[in-house]
């Protein structure tokens, strides 16, 4: 009898397993890779672990290229009627995704108090780009800010305190002047400061503009303040660094080679993403420091990086499963490990209270700078028709930095173009 019961229960159990297999929900998940490191392997690991905890859900991660390629693939799939269930896309693409009617707000799935608690658990700065019209459209996942890296050895050589990075624009110019070295024939062998301006100069410019108390777009994404007096002043300051003070390389500086320029000792200070921290830590042959960006009227930096979105045309059951996956992904322990592995900022204060991240930060204090800067951070520039409106600013910034236009002219032109593009959304 006992044997019979045992064999019966085994049979029943196997029956359960097979029905579970039949009832499995498949969640397709597109993700981009934007920083170095074995990102694909980590994400595949997450999918497998999630499946272990939730046997009835199978997450299929699809590596979809860069951010740009990922949104092209996701939106094309959406237009053909078969989008992925979820995807990591730039937080600034939220308006585009809403305008294309491609995503659903997370609020659809928030039912319990625990859910509401979870939505509130993130750093407020990271929610800025994802919350529109009182709805939460994206959950922060791989997020970053701009920070300043500086060469302590060069600081010592120039007679500066290597523990004290410039805290204001005035100090930036003073220290930058001391750090700029020229050889006998007047060629610069070491620049004081370098802020890259190829590709997406608006992002780094948001450092300057925020510090000068200018906010580039309204929260509704229908108006921009490109020709605001404070915005013009901010661009003028960036241009002055190279054109007046001659402590910054002239023209447009490549984003991609900037970390290399720093490690080669060609620039004593650089501004770039926190995402480069692990790379620079591994490869810089000298002692370096990480600091918040300097202040003028205030401190300031934009946030950046990708949010987790759920697609509208996916079946309800898959959407629900994707929502559970998002909650699972952003648990403090996992967010902490993700931050350690990649250099991205962990998305919630609770993650910084975990033993793993505490230990890491004790060994390597620069890992905390990005978090400490978050209270000063603002939303990344994002509007309706986002990439086009942003391109108007990018073109204007590059025109100013290369000396083709004055700061005022460049930004007035950008404003006219942006206003024209946004007129249908008023």
């Amino acid at each position, binding site marked *: 009898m006992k044997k019979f019961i045992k064999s019966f229960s085994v049979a029943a159990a196997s029956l359960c397993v097979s029905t579970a297999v039949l009832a499995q929900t498949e969640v397709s998940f597109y993700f981009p890779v934007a920083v170095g490191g074995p990102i694909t392997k980590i994400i595949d690991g997450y999918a497998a672990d999630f499946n272990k905890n939730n046997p009835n859900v199978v997450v299929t991660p699809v590596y979809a290229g860069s951010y740009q390629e990922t949104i092209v693939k996701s939106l094309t799939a959406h237009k053909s009627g078969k989008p992925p269930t979820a995807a990591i896309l730039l937080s600034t693409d939220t308006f585009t995704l809403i305008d294309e009617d491609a995503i659903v707000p997370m609020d659809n799935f928030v039912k319990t108090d625990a859910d509401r608690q979870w939505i509130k658990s993130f750093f407020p700065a990271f929610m800025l780009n994802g919350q529109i019209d009182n709805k939460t459209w994206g959950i922060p996942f791989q997020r970053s800010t701009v920070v300043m890296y500086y060469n302590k050895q060069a600081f010592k050589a120039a007679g500066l305190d290597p523990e004290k990075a410039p805290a204001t624009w005035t100090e930036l110019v003073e220290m930058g002047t001391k750090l700029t070295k020229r050889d006998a024939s007047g060629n610069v062998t070491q620049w004081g400061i370098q802020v890259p301006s190829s590709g997406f100069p608006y992002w780094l410019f948001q450092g300057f503009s925020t510090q000068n108390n200018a906010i580039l777009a309204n929260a509704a994404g229908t108006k921009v303040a490109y020709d605001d007096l404070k915005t013009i002043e901010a661009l003028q300051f960036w241009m002055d660094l190279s054109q007046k003070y001659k402590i910054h390389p002239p023209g447009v500086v490549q984003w991609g080679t900037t970390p290399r320029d720093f490690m080669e000792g060609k620039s004593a200070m650089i501004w770039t993403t926190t995402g480069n921290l692990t790379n620079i830590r591994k490869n810089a042959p000298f002692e370096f420091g990480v600091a918040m960006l300097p202040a003028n009227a205030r401190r300031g930096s934009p946030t950046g990086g990708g949010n987790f979105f759920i697609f509208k045309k996916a079946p309800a059951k898959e959407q629900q499963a994707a929502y559970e996956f998002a909650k699972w992904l952003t648990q403090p322990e996992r967010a902490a490990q993700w931050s350690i592995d990649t250099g991205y900022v962990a998305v919630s204060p609770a993650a910084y209270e975990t033993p793993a991240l505490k230990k890491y930060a004790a060994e390597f204090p620069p890992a905390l700078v990005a978090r400490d800067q978050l209270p000063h951070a603002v939303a990344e520039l994002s509007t309706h028709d986002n990439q086009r409106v942003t391109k108007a600013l990018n073109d204007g910034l590059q025109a100013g930095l*290369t000396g083709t236009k004055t700061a005022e002219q460049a930004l007035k032109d950008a404003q006219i173009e942006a206003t024209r593009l946004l007129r249908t959304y008023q």
Partner: protein
Amino acid sequence: MTLTSRHIQAYLLLLPAFVFLVGFTHYPAIATLIDSVMSAPRGGRAPAFIGLENYQAMIQDPVFWKSAINNLWFALATIPASMALSIVMALWVNDKIAGRQFLRMSYFLPTVMPMIAVANIWIFFYTPDYGLINQILQLLGFKSLNFLGNPDLALMSVTIVAIWKEAGFFMIFYLAALQTLSPSYREAAQIEGASRWYFFWRIQWPLLMPTTIFVLVNALINSVRMVDHIFVMTNGGPNNASSLLLFYLYEVGFKFWDRGYASTLTVVLLAILAIAGLVQFFLLDRRTHYR
């Protein structure tokens, strides 16, 4: 003439090719033409007929004109330069010289490497101060130049990469053509005491004409098609100084999601290519001697 079973059989045999031709060439071309007079579909809104509004917008779009003029310069530089370079290289590696195989391979290498990888390497060649080219410039006593970050130099810099990439590919065609030329021409020329230049100009060059036409058509197509390295090296910047038509088309289509306007640009691009192709075939083809 009646439709015989022979005709039906012929059409059936043509059918598979015809399906592909219609599916991948004719249908997209017509669909593009239709899309170009429609507004971009956004969210719930269906595309609406707007006539020539997209074409008007294009004429008023400074970035379009900038890209078009850039593309013209890009074509005017890459086509003759890559062809001239490829002939010189082909003539050289056609001779019996030491290390010929190695040379041929080195010249062909840029062609087999993926453009994205190549562009990433060239970024470092062009880097100010410590980049390869600037190190050489500084050694010769010149000042370091910011090739990709200066609007006056950016287009030239991406053009050079394209020439470097293309020349090896065209060399293969010239080399193959040169090897089909009968050695008796050269022997005869040597006996007659013709100079090397005379031999090339009066004998090899005319005989290479069919290859030249082929290469010219390809070079023209490539001059509007080769934009991969723009994405990596400059993103069309600074301030659109290195933006080319196809690059701008991608931006409009897949960054701005403006399908209508992107279709308009495609139609214009197609028209330009068609005209250029026809001119080439009708003018040059007649003057070419095919054996």
